[in-house]
């Protein structure tokens, strides 16, 4: 059938395009090619003959109406259905031309919009923090308001259940840092300095950061996903209409739970990382545990330990508030949960590291 899809008969001024068989989008390309060869613009009178065609689909009809418009061709057919299809495509083509123009955007408009969008999201995060602060004030105005049950539930859910993974991660980090340092120290015969090095680096920096990273990945993302899912199922709307403030029920218990628990987790991380250090010192530096601990008390001041713990509540506030905020702005589609969960982890890790840097500068200038 494709071979005799189109037959052209022409004399000087006029041409007749006779289509036959089924005219569908499958052979549209073929028809276009063979028509391109005939150079229609040379002819004054063009007729499209559909007498032998058995079927016409809308794609092909669109092409024929294009011919009609461009070259002033006349379409001849006795089939009523063909006329109907052609009329339909013509009618909709008029609307198409008006409405479907893709707007082009230049690079300035693009960056301007992107900048404005991030400005708006910053403002909305500030609004969220303001609301959190305000509901904190209301919360503590009346002891009855404090939701001990929810706080206890969140403490178990987002901190106690993370105890194992925090302990294991920090133990391994202690092991690895000590092992890396051991070789270098041994070469200079400074075996005993492993204690100084481990004490300061673990207590001040590594334990708080590792704990914050694990909690951000585990509990911060869980906050976003939980609250985002509640948003999609309209549970948060339902709470509001029943007069339960989502901030008292969902937001504050999570923030309070994490602020309480992160220093405790950091304490656990301190112990576990030190344990890793002690094992390495004993095995590859021949430094008995008793000596390690004695030296630790001698050379590492308590302030290093407190500096690490002090960071805990700040990191916790950042992780919890970013996680919850991202959950609350989840929109009404399922993609939004995934997007915001990823965002919440990335943003809270970034915030934690920035906060850590600020602490470093502050403590150094204060001489702590």
């Amino acid at each position: 059938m494709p071979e005799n899809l189109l037959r052209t008969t022409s004399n000087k001024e006029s041409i007749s395009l006779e289509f036959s068989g089924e005219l569908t989008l499958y052979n549209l390309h073929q028809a276009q090619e063979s028509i391109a060869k005939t150079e229609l613009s040379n002819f004054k009178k063009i007729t499209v003959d559909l007498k032998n065609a058995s079927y016409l689909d809308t794609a092909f009809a669109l092409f024929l109406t294009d011919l009609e418009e461009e070259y002033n061709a006349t379409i001849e057919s006795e089939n009523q259905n063909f006329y109907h299809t052609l009329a339909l495509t013509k009618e909709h083509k008029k609307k198409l031309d008006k409405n479907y123009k893709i707007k082009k955007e230049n690079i300035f408009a693009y960056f301007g919009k992107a900048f404005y969008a991030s400005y708006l999201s910053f403002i909305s995060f500030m609004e969220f923090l303001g609301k959190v602060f305000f509901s904190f004030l209301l919360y503590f105005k009346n002891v009855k308001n404090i939701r001990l049950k929810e706080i206890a539930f969140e403490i178990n859910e987002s901190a106690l259940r993370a105890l194992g993974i925090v302990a294991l991660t920090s133990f391994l980090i202690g092991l690895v840092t000590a092992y890396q340092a051991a070789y270098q120290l041994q070469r200079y015969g400074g075996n005993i300095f492993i204690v100084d090095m481990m004490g300061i680096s673990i207590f001040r920096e590594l334990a708080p950061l590792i704990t914050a990273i694990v909690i951000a990945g585990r509990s911060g993302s869980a906050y976003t996903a939980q609250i985002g899912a509640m948003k999609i199922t309209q549970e948060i709307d339902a709470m509001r209409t029943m007069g339960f403030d989502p901030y008292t029920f969902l937001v504050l218990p999570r923030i309070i739970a994490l602020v309480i628990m992160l220093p405790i987790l950091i304490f656990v991380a301190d112990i576990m990382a030190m344990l890793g250090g002690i094992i390495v010192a004993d095995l590859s530096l021949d430094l008995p545990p008793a000596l390690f601990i004695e030296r630790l008390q001698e050379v590492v001041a308590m302030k290093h330990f407190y500096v690490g713990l002090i960071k805990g509540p700040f990191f916790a506030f950042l992780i919890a508030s970013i996680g919850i905020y991202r959950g609350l702005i989840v929109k009404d589609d399922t993609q939004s949960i995934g997007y915001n969960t990823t965002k919440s982890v990335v943003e809270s890790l970034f915030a934690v590291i920035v906060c850590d840097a600020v602490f470093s500068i502050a403590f150094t200038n204060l001489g702590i």
Partner: protein
Amino acid sequence: MELIRVKNVKTVFGDKVVHDGLTLHVKEGEIYGLLGPSGCGKTTLLREMVMLQEFHSGSVEILGQKIENISEKEAQELRRKWGVLFQFGALFSSLTLAENIALALREYATLSEKMIQEIVAFKLDLVGLKPSDAFLYPSQISGGMRKKAGIARALAMDPKLLFLDEPTSGLDPISAREFDELILQLRSMLGLTMVIVTHDLHSIYNTLDRMAIIDNKKIAYEGSLEEVTSVKNDFIQTFFRDAIPIPTKETTFKQ
């Protein structure tokens, strides 16, 4: 008496005007419908009435309270006087049905555990759920049951006013008609006033006393079913054209 007075409400999202001066009144004891083509802002208006969303200008008065300048304390009191059924029930997924219904009771009233259980069982029975369903979680029950449980929760505090967002959408025709029946029963038993957002023609004919049709940012019609077809409006003509003669409950059950 008019329980809800909406006057000249204007809603704007960004630069898109959704409502351009809506005015409507809901009388006590009525089942009042909010109708209109998709995207006309029916649900938005409902959300504005229950203070989930703010409107640009105008005034909404509910149970004698103007909600555009209401204090937080008054708002809390007002919230206990109404119930809302969301489109998909919006039951708290971490709680069982019984806990969902009991939540407001526990928060707002000092009741003994035995009393709470009794109230929960009564509300479950009222909406046609079995006592054994009480200990199921929302994920374990069907969509129709979820909506019934949603109504039971909305009725927990014995409100005067009930807002229902598309109560019959997503239900099979038989459950949908049963739901219409439930709505009528609840009205006659408890003397409720209800505001319903709906698309369902059968529900419209079975349950509504009066309605407002929102089209093209305005109220195209407010009034009873009898006169609606005489209104010259494209949406109304198309929507109600096929629905004559009026299908009644008997004919739909026979099918």
